[in-house]
């Protein structure tokens, strides 16, 4: 709660006091001068968002393309083909992309229970690893049924890159000699 603004006479007194103090006290004068500057820009909010590294994303895309022809598949116009033809290509993508993912990531379900099982979430459950949905109210422990067991990457083995390697080349053009 700030005090009410000073009256006229109070302001007159202050002005004189400030006048004489500014003459004699350089620091005080400096602070008076600073008062006259426009207010500084408000401090930006502390930065809570990180840049995701671009190269890792490119590497993953390259691996999916190399093993599973991922970009080829997505960049093709599927409307011109029958389901059977798309299905054949999807086998290539599924088999290869799975191999690429298996080589880079070690993945395990977050919950070991069968889907549909009754689950008890203790008060200190990890809200990042387990999301509660539906009739969410009250305080934990929560009781509910597991609708998706979740996935967690246990280990990542991204290839290391050689100096000067251009990761943006997802698949080189190929020329048969």
């Amino acid at each position: 709660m700030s005090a009410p603004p000073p009256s006229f006479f109070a302001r007159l007194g202050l002005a004189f006091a400030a006048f004489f103090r500014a003459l004699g006290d350089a620091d005080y004068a400096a602070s008076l001068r600073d008062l006259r500057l426009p207010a500084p820009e408000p401090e930006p909010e502390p930065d809570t968002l990180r840049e995701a590294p671009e190269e890792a994303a490119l590497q993953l895309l390259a691996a999916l393309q190399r093993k599973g022809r991922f970009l080829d598949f997505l960049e093709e116009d599927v409307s011109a083909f029958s389901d059977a033809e798309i299905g054949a290509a999807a086998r290539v993508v599924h088999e290869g992309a799975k191999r690429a993912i298996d080589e880079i990531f070690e993945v395990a379900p977050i919950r070991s229970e069968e889907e549909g099982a009754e689950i008890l979430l203790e008060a200190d459950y990890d809200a990042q690893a387990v999301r509660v949905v539906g009739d969410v109210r009250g305080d934990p422990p929560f009781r509910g049924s597991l609708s998706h067991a979740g996935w967690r990457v246990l280990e990542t083995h991204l290839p290391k890159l050689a100096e000067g390697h251009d990761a943006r080349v997802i698949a080189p053009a190929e020329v048969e000699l």
Partner: protein
Amino acid sequence: MSSPGYAIGLDLGTTHCALSSVDLDLSEGEDVAQSMFRVPQSVAPGEVEARPLLPSFAYIPHERELPPGSLALPWTANPALLVGGLARDLGAKTPGRLVSSVKSWLCHPKVDRRAPILPVDASEDVACISPLEASAAYLKHLRQAWDAAHPEATLAEQELVITVPASFDPAARELTAQAALQAGLAGATLLEEPQAALYAFLARTPDFRTQLSPGDLILVVDVGGGTTDLSLIAVLEEEGQLALRRVAVGEHILLGGDNMDLALAHALGVELSAQGKTLDSWQLRALAHGCRAGKEALLSGAHEGDYPLAIPSRGRKLIGGSVRVTLRRELLDRVILEGFFPDVELHSHPQSRGRGALTELGLPYARDPAITRHLAAFLSRQLDATAELPGFESARGTFLHPTALLFNGGVFKAPRLMQRLTRMLDSWLEADGAPPLRVLEGADLDHAVARGAAYYGYVKRGGGVRIRGGTAQAYYVGVEESAPAIPGVEPPVRALCVAPFGLEEGMTADAPPQELGLVVGESVRFRFFGSSVRRDDVSGSLLERWTEEELSELGAIEATLPAEGAAPGDVVPVRLSARVTELGVLELSAIPEHGEQRFTIELDVRSD
């Protein structure tokens, strides 16, 4: 040399290499701290990844093929040779620069294994390498990878075990030891792969003593990517302790899972070309890859009915360009089950055994792809293998009766193949009035050999059950009879035994009393034979005649006596002495009658 901190098992396979380590400081008794080492390797130009297996392929790139520096590895900016996953992948589209099946070439006595003969169909500007150099390159890659990760405990200083097929002849073992030496890994012990598989079983089965008892005879069937290896290991009791002895190994069968996948791919390729679709070699490989997945799915019961496959196009048009093909169960049964694992009678033997002119051009693949027939022949031939072992009844019936069965090798990721083999063996046993087999629980078919080898390195230092056995053959040199020469008729050859069956590591055989005349200053070649059934011959036994079943001819051997102290052309009488080194390599030497020196006899000589 500081005392080793690890026991290391190196599986130098036809299609993959693997490295497993046992931390000796953290292991105590049967509590073994073991892990698989992930091997960094180029997986794409400019990308290096650590993977559990190192594909046994080398690629010799054109100087402008890849961007400079794109083959850099954690330990070198410019490797001498590209080895591993990227080598295999590049070679699929450029086969003239790809070195593959090195292990099969290493045991091929018809070629000079120190000569630059690989890649087989090399493009003209490719600097070829020898099978020996290529093997050394794989081992060197493993050494450098390990050393980069463990600078304080370099690989050369550890207890090293390298695995070889049990059916490798002495020359191929010697070459493997030399490859290790070239890779900077002196002092590596050689271990037979089926034994390594059994060690892996012992390591992961803490209560193996309740599963095995004296009188058991374990048949190890090891079908890898490129070779099929059979061994029999007897369980004995020695001084109240369980003891294991390897009593027999099968002959060298150049036949494995890759042949099966390729056979399937070819069968499907023929069907496709009948429909007017031709596949190039890269697509054929993609098809073989798909066939392997299909084979495993169909033979594991995971998939009912037929297995659909798709061969990707080379260009960008994946959906329009992919070729659809179905791996039908009927085709699988015909090619794999009836081709490689046919139901056979015990007395049916592999067809067209022996050497033919065709085998000299490429690798001497098994003439008869039927693994079951090879198995039947092996068990029949080894009828007497346990005759002299305490606790084993003398042979009854028509073949040697195993009591337990251990499978190894990637082929058995298809469980129906295990069941089929087990059923067939059981039917033979039943016909002979013997009880059915117990199947020993196997696991981790890709890594068992490397794991078992590392475990062997551990028990070798610390005690524990070891498999003994020594050489699985008796060895003979061909001695020409001094008979009057008849034009057009080869002089008769007798076989002089120089090393008896079961010569163990570190043992020297008595030199046979017979003396041979060697011409000083000249290389003299001898024919060299091995027998996996003549267990009673001793050094000096001289065979006048033998059947093809008894003795098989190995590559030639060569002795050279330096001319020092004698006039060139002089004939010096020598005796031949054999020993098996501590590392498991057979050494033959010539000892002149007068003098102390021994002259090493070369085992890996190309036989013309």
